[in-house]
């Protein structure tokens, strides 16, 4: 039994999930992840590198990942901005990696020690081009551990960058946690190619659009090319409309085909709710408190906590019953996910937002005020 903060849980989970390479640049409020990994990784045969900046940090982990290591880097808003270019490279070249963003107030240097959830859209669209992305958002220390393991697993099995989007509250919050026993964790590995001397090795070839390409690790005897240009099945640049389209379709299909499995959602007291609170990360805790207090007063409130923010779980809103009149989206930003909820709701419910950009958590009181007005 341990009493630790979210950031430490993230670092512990990374090691347990098989991460053996970290490169990054410390930044509040994420620094403890680097601090703990700098001590732990060398002891398990891993490597820790403090780089000259955040760009070099993600560059180094992508190199290590191509060489076969499970990798992770951690940062906050300002550093996350710097990582965007190579995040796109990882998405196109299908390089498994986990990027942790412990969100703080922005824009720019913003509020270094205060929480925010204002990078949700950046996590989705921060890098240019149509790219798929998986973004997970924990609301407790235990969930930080679980979702870090899940992030590493998803990035490996789907060969895609995965973003763990936490915030200063969850990152610095101390809670009790029991680590899973050694061997109890289910870990997944990236698919490996088989050597066939009669066939040319095509690293980006798949049997179906939803399949994961069997890209070899560097140094394992396969010769191939990795480029940020749109590429052919052999990895070399190509510009043929059909092939361009096929690559982009396949990148999206590998996530879309598994949407239901990737999307993790906490549903709470929805059975008879007329008002549903939708949130993610630390804000889910405020919403849970509201549900508890409102129910005690006989107000029919339920909640949806998005552990997976991207791909957006539209189906959750399709499944809401006729009793639901209003969905209130609670977030520590000016209103980002509320637009997704509006889209997914297809006009079936009234959508409201409760927002905070003051650098403190949304209080149950202010959410409850909104509930009362519904």
């Amino acid at each position, binding site marked *: *039994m341990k*009493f630790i903060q979210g950031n430490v849980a993230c670092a512990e989970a990374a090691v347990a999930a098989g991460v053996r390479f970290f490169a990054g640049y410390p930044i*509040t409020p994420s620094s403890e992840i680097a601090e703990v990994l700098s001590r732990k990784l060398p002891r398990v045969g891993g490597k820790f590198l403090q780089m000259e900046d955040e760009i070099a940090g993600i560059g180094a982990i992508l190199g290590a990942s191509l060489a076969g290591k499970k990798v992770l880097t951690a940062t906050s808003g300002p550093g996350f901005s710097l990582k965007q270019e190579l995040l796109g490279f990882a998405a196109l070249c299908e390089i498994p990696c986990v990027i942790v963003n412990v969100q703080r107030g922005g824009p720019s240097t913003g509020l*270094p*020690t*205060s929480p925010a959830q204002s990078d949700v859209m950046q996590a989705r669209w921060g890098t240019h081009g149509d790219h798929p992305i998986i973004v997970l958002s924990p609301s407790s220390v235990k969930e930080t551990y679980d979702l870090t393991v899940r992030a590493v697993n998803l990035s490996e099995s789907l060969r895609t960058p995965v973003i763990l989007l936490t915030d200063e*509250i969850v990152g*610095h*919050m*101390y*809670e*009790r946690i029991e680590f899973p026993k050694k061997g109890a964790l289910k870990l997944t590995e990236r698919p490996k190619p088989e050597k066939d001397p009669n066939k040319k090795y095509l690293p980006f070839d798949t049997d179906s659009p939803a399949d994961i390409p069997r890209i070899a690790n560097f140094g394992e005897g396969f010769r191939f090319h990795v480029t940020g240009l749109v590429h052919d099945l052999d990895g070399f640049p190509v510009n043929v409309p059909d092939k361009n389209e096929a690559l982009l379709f396949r990148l999206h299909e590998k996530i879309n085909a598994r949407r239901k499995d990737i999307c993790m959602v906490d549903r709470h007291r929805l059975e008879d709710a007329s008002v549903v609170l939708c949130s993610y990360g*630390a804000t889910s*805790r*405020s919403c*849970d*408190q509201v549900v*508890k207090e409102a129910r005690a007063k006989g107000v029919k409130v339920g909640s949806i906590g998005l552990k997976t923010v991207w791909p957006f779980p539209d189906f959750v809103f399709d499944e809401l019953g006729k009793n639901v009149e209003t969905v209130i989206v609670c977030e520590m930003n000016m209103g980002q996910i509320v637009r997704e909820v509006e889209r997914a709701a297809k006009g079936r419910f009234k959508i409201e937002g409760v927002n905070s950009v003051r650098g*403190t*958590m949304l*209080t*149950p*009181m202010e959410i409850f005020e909104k509930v009362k007005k519904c």
Partner: protein
Amino acid sequence: MNILKLLKIRKKSKELASTYVFSRLEVTLSGSGGQGMILAGKILAEAAAIFDGKEAVMTQSYGPEARGGASKAEIIISDGKIDYPKSMRVNVLLVMTQEAMDKYGKLLDPNGLLVVDETFVKDIPSNIKNVFKSPFSKMAMKILDATIVANVIALGAVVALTKAVSRESLIKSVLRRVPKKVVVLDRMAVDAGYKIVDDSGFKWSCNENT
């Protein structure tokens, strides 16, 4: 430091074995960055979560300064699951500096208890009913010849006043969290905090007040 004096402090103290009876106790420890409020918060929350078997969460607020600036640790202790991890109505507020007093004083519940380090806090709002004052930082210097344990003395006093956790759990938690070279000092600091409260005869019951 005078060891004999310390041993004298360690000896007595009759306290009730029971801890608080409260569904949700909110304690805020505040002071200046570097005074050890966040460490004290970890010690208290860990005492509750690990050694008392209760639910406990600690969150922190601090400024971007490397040292200085108002800093606070918010601890929630509960018998049931804790959803909202921040304070809603602070039952117990420790203030170690005037800045923290001015900034966080208004968070205290009208029936709550204010614990003040008189060394640095001179101006206490007159509307606060329940106030326990003691010069923790001066005492740290006087009794243990080390200002660095002022936080643990104050924490000892807070626990003695509130029974937020059991004394045994607090001591176990202190021993687990503080750096090895100051373990003995901090262990004594806990007793000093208890003694200050014992000697004062001050009584406060969170149960009567809510």
